[in-house]
């Protein structure tokens, strides 16, 4: 990993606002050319991290390198090579969207006119409307077009699609993929899990100003369980004796259970013995990964865990774990998730 070039390298980042500790030893490394998902709930410190990466806020501790440079001392140099889409785009009420796009692009050092017009077209944006007349989604489009029309090598996107409709969301995903193919690095902060899941090569999950986990989705999924639903010719027996199988539900010839990442093979072999008619397996979603880390907050809010599967967090240090899990945190989350289950009255 140290041999690879890193577009963003953050370690032990700290930032406090008065008595509030926004970032508390955050680590983040984004490899050049990857799409990196940056996940966390509201208030976890995502936007603060991005503002530090942009040199808008000065870090109180830790080290930060963006494109190999210190973003506070050499903000302008860094900015020439990156483009940023804030989560809450504010435009000038009396400037048109087209003017705002041109302004931002030219101040960054030039604009590809053809590309800009193409993006305006694809995002179905009327560039003649004044800033005050745009809806939130349209303001967001202005910032996205301005960022992507540039040839910046690094894109920092802070919940960029908030307010975009599903059609535009698809356009956005296409555009980010194109950016990746063109060799650009993307840091995509979000709490929209499906979006990160579709785009990101690797993700970092942060919580209360600290990184709790980072790695590829495959690595993370290994830590959780796959849900399997099957219909067999004869009722299945013997699964409950198998190690690593949880939440077994049998209803005649239908069976549903969760199985640890390393035990899928054994479980499917058992099923095979009863004649599989239909088989569906769901890999754990990022939602489940997230819930593992925020289970305690949900428990505090009295959330019913239902069938989300996030209740299975009691083995954070599963075999073959390559991701950098914050074990203590995960254990906390597991306990709390259990508590949430008990509250919800779900039978185990």
């Amino acid at each position: 990993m140290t041999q690879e070039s890193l577009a963003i390298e953050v370690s032990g980042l700290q930032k406090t606002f008065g008595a509030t500790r926004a970032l508390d030893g955050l680590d983040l490394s984004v490899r050049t050319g990857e799409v990196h998902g940056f996940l966390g709930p509201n208030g976890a410190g995502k936007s603060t991290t991005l503002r530090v990466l942009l040199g808008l806020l000065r870090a109180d501790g830790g080290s930060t390198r963006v494109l190999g440079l210190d973003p506070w001392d050499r903000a302008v140099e860094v900015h020439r090579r990156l483009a940023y889409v804030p989560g809450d785009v504010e435009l000038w009420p009396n400037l048109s969207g087209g003017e705002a796009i041109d302004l931002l692009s030219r101040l960054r050092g030039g604009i590809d006119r053809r590309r800009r017009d193409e993006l305006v077209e694809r995002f179905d944006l009327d560039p003649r409307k004044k800033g005050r007349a745009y809806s939130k989604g349209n303001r967001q489009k202005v910032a996205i077009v301005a960022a992507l029309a540039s040839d910046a090598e690094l894109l920092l996107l802070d919940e960029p699609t908030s307010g975009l409709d599903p059609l535009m969301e698809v356009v956005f995903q296409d555009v980010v993929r194109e950016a990746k193919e063109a060799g650009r690095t993307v840091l995509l902060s979000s709490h929209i899990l499906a979006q990160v899941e579709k785009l990101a090569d690797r993700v970092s999950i942060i919580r209360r100003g600290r990184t709790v986990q980072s790695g590829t989705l495959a690595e993370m999924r290994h830590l959780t369980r796959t849900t399997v639903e099957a219909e067999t010719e004869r009722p299945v027996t013997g699964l409950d004796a198998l190690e690593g199988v949880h939440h077994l539900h049998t209803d005649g010839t239908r069976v549903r259970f969760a199985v640890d990442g390393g035990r899928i093979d054994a479980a499917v072999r058992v099923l095979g013995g009863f004649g599989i008619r239909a088989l569906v397996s769901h890999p754990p979603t990022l939602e489940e990964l997230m819930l593992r880390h925020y289970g305690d907050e949900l428990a505090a809010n009295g959330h019913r865990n239902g069938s989300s599967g996030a209740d299975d967090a009691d083995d954070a240090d599963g075999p073959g774990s390559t991701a950098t899990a914050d074990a203590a945190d995960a254990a906390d989350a597991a306990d709390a998730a259990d508590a949430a289950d008990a509250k919800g009255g779900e039978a185990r």
Partner: protein
Amino acid sequence: MTTTAAPSAGASAAAPVPAPAPRAPFTGTGALLRFALRRDRLRLPVWLAALVVTTVSTANSTAALYDSPEARASAARTMATPAALAMTGPQHFLDHYTYGAMLSHKMIGFMGVLVGLMSVLIVTRHTRGEEETGRAELVRSTVVGRHAQLAAALSLALLANLALALLLAVSLAGLGIESIGLSGALVYGAAHAATGVVLAGVAAVTAQTSSSTRGASGLALAVIGAAYILRAAGDSGSSDALSWASPIGWAQRSYPFADDRWWPLLLCLAVAAACAATGFLLSSRRDVGAGLRPARLGRATASRALTSPFGLALRLQRGLLAGFCAGLFVMGAMYGSIIGDIEDMLGSVEQIQQALAEIGGATLAESFASMVMVVISVVSMVFVVMAVLRARAEETGGRAEALLTTGISRASWLGGHLAVALLGAVLTQLLAGLGFGLAAAAATGDHAMTGDLIAAALVHVPALWTAAGIALVLLGLLPRATALAWVVPLYAFAVGYLGEILRFPEWAGDLSPLGHVPQLPAAPMEWTPVLVLTLVAAALCVTGIAGFRHRDLETE
């Protein structure tokens, strides 16, 4: 889960009682008024206290300064010049120049501007300001009638003005100064409130016509300025009818402590009611968040000129700058035309010679011009401070963030706004001097005056730059306190304008940047203070920019 806090006053509209009359346009006004009072619980007392303290201290110093009938008679003679009347109020006060008449004469016009400012800001803040931020939408989606927000804002302005009237009456009557009794003090207080209420009504209209808070306040402030200039022109003697076209003129013509007549104040109330009714009518003809005119489309692409920090700052401020330039040109021209009257009266009035001797050396027209330059420069200074504070608004509004993550440095971004402020100072002074000079030259036939008066206006520019520097230092080093920059023009006005009338000590004037400017054309040119002010301004600007470069960007 269960709610932990009892619903606040503002939330009572959300109580599970069916709305009494869904069509009632004023439903919820009471709740909104209580909410507005809660929001302004610090702002309003500060305004009221500042206005009352200014009045009481002026009353005290008047009584101390002119403690004999002879002194008051002499003061009346000094005041009987068009220049002094333009700065104060109608000549009728001079007939019996008691302490009370002196107070009314000197204060009502000036205080009318401040009370008007307070009222305008109250109304725009609680109407257009709420719409602009989108909070109005949230409020209007609850059980709140179409007119409730405007009604609550106007009620708040009315309450503030009534409170001011009572506070002024009680505190002045309590001073026990001869000729300042309770009945006069009540009229005096009511004259202030009447001015405030008219301007609240004006703001109720401008809040509908402009689609931005800035525009709504700006338009209403222009009305205040026009009202003041009209009465200044009328009172200086050219035509009483001009004063009767101004709400500030009406307030002065209630003649508190002299005639104590109430009926001119009824004019104020009638106009205020008419304005408010217009405001309600207009507000029901437009959409929430929109102005009266449909939004126009802009350019699809940006021009070359826009895409630089200076170009953007200029674009953002060009409306404001154009407004100030036009306003100052007209203001200069108004005063310039009065100068003719002064010259005419110079030979005919015997007391003038005395007054001339008191001011010292220069001709009366020249000392008048010097005095007017102070007022003009204070108005320019308001622009300069607004221009610098715009940068702060861009920062907290989140718009600077987008720009500062492109290839421009913080210094050049802030420099763009600063350049608009600094060059704007030159432009506004140039145009004010030009208006003044052209009108004066036309009125007197002395064409050399044009150049002299332009120079007199421009010599104030370094003081305006200093004000910009002070605002910039606050922005860079004490960003949360940036609004304190307003102290500079307010103080400059207080000592430069009132100081002339109330004879403040010299050190008080020295605290204002304008206090160091050579008073052309009455006084000779001195380069040292001008150069020193320029250097001070440069140092302040450098410090401010350095501070801004080394702090966190703040976004609300």
